[in-house]
């Protein structure tokens, strides 16, 4: 079958400007996008830069956008992408610094962030014959997480990275989970503190895009939520988030539901004049429109005492 590949091009050694090259070629019915790229490079244009390695969907090297969606080029079959016509667009992942053509900067995209979460084990006690052993059952939960092959799909789907490239991202935060939840790790609380810093777990919007993108079913968002729950239960160290969560929890505990006015002022901090001033323009407009919830004027839900009892019991159990 004849297919035209419209490929993103950028050459920093020339003018570094973005362009697109069109390559029309004959490919086999069962060809993958990676097969096609190799053919283009061998037969048409040896200057085209892309990555590829295992060819079996294992290593994650050939991640790129095929017709706009992130895919592994080695498992993306050409006929699956030509149903609307014999053209396929190929682009690097979004929001990553491109080095050349389809090759992007993995260090900036992921590895530097993974390094930042201290991705290693500091086991309690002394290793036996160089090994830190634990039971098979204790590692069950982590098995799935350990199957991550760093393809970057979760980061590609992330909602936060397009507005803030410095956000650690789901891949690195999932790596943090892997060690924070390792039963042998004595420094697990330390690990949670690292990802509690700005650009970490509290910057995640938990929109579950990452889970939808992960080809291994690792569910990065659920891992991030677990890290957050652990931080909540052992005392949040991020100041603004701690204020927000403490106010939220107190109002649900005391009244059964949320006092939004109280949450707005307590999230800024009652002594934070600058922060409270910032709320004023919106609060004034909301007041005029009759929609500003007045703090501490909040009535209790019927059965608030029963909800409080459940809340306190759950808190107690976690401690």
């Amino acid at each position, binding site marked *: 079958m004849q297919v035209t590949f419209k490929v993103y091009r950028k050459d920093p050694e020339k003018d570094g400007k973005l362009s697109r090259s069109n390559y029309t070629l004959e490919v086999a019915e069962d060809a993958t996008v990676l097969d096609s790229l190799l053919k283009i490079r061998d037969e048409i244009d040896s200057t085209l830069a892309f990555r590829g390695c295992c060819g079996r969907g294992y290593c994650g090297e050939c991640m790129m956008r095929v017709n706009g969606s992130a895919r592994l080029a080695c498992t993306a079959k050409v006929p699956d992408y030509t149903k609307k016509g014999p053209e396929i667009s190929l682009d690097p992942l979004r929001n990553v610094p491109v080095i050349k053509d389809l090759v992007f900067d993995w260090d900036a995209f992921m590895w530097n962030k993974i390094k930042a979460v201290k991705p290693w084990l500091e086991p309690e006690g002394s290793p036996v014959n160089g090994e830190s052993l634990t039971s098979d059952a204790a590692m069950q939960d982590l098995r799935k997480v350990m199957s991550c092959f760093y393809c970057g799909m979760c980061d590609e789907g992330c909602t936060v990275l397009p507005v803030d490239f410095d956000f650690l991202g789901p891949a690195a935060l999932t790596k943090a989970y892997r060690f924070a939840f390792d039963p042998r790790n004595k420094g697990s609380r330390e690990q949670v503190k690292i990802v509690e810093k700005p650009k970490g777990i509290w910057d995640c919007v938990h929109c579950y895009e990452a889970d939808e993108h992960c080809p291994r079913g690792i569910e990065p968002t659920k891992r991030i939520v677990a890290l957050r729950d652990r931080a909540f239960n052992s005392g949040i160290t991020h100041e603004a988030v701690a204020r927000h969560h403490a106010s939220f929890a107190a109002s649900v505990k005391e009244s059964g539901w949320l006092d939004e006015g109280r949450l707005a002022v307590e999230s800024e901090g009652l002594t934070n004049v600058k922060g409270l001033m910032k709320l004023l323009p919106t609060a004034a407009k909301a007041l005029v429109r009759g929609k500003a919830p007045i703090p501490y004027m909040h009535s209790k839900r019927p059965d608030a005492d029963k909800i409080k009892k*459940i809340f306190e019991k759950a808190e107690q159990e976690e401690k």
Partner: protein
Amino acid sequence: MKYAFYPGCVSRGGCPELYPSAVKVADKLGIELDELKSVGCTGAGVLPQNISDPINARTFAKAEQLGLPIMTICSTCTGVMAQANYRLKEDPNYREKVNKEFLADEGLEYKGTTEVKHLLWVLFEDYGIERLQSLIQRPLKGLKVSPFYGCYLRRPPEAITPTKELNRRKSYLDELIGILGAEMADISGKGKCCGFPILSANEENSLAMVAKHTGESKENGADFMVTPCPLCHLNLDGNQQRAEAQTGKEIDLPILHLPQFVGLALGFDPNEMNLKRHIVSTGDVESKVNMIS
């Protein structure tokens, strides 16, 4: 047709225009609402699961006693409850533990039969689009509308779109725009996060998301955006002017709640749908709507 109604705190707190609009629309459609008053907050993704799951289990048990499915008017309430319900239904041991430790004291038990549905899902799955169409008195012709779902109404699949058929939930709002006679002004981020959950942790990123979604909608010619999530509304409407200040770009895009949008097509006056209570002026929308009738 009757539901255990869970309106959520924002529909009477930060977005007090939502609750009365939803009640009026339900009444006009003939959907009977039995409001759950003695139940707690869902946790909104802020409280950890070990605390919010038992509180939600109590809500499900109360609805189960009434023999009614739960209807919400908030994507976040729906999503958090649907996820908790999935865990409680899927794992009988977990449900038994929650029942024993937290609900038994009150003589309650959650058997795992309660369904949680957003009004948007109710319209398509229970009420029926033909029935809705037969009640339209003011097709919203000439209005261009962008959909914004609220991410909790899209994912995770096991709780939100558990079957191939229910995968259609991801396009209900798109479909509804056409059904009510309006024109679609599509945006790439309609299923993404509005930024509200990180307003405390990272305001700059949160406002950047507001600017991204509303800016794209405006560029695509939308008269307004419609959302089934009042938390999205708080950020997209309430903080839009701060997002404009941060980006230095004027946006000025009205954001309507789902029941307001439906209500206008059902023939309600914009004032009856409390449009004047929004932060971003809805004046142009009101004029256009009034021209139709």
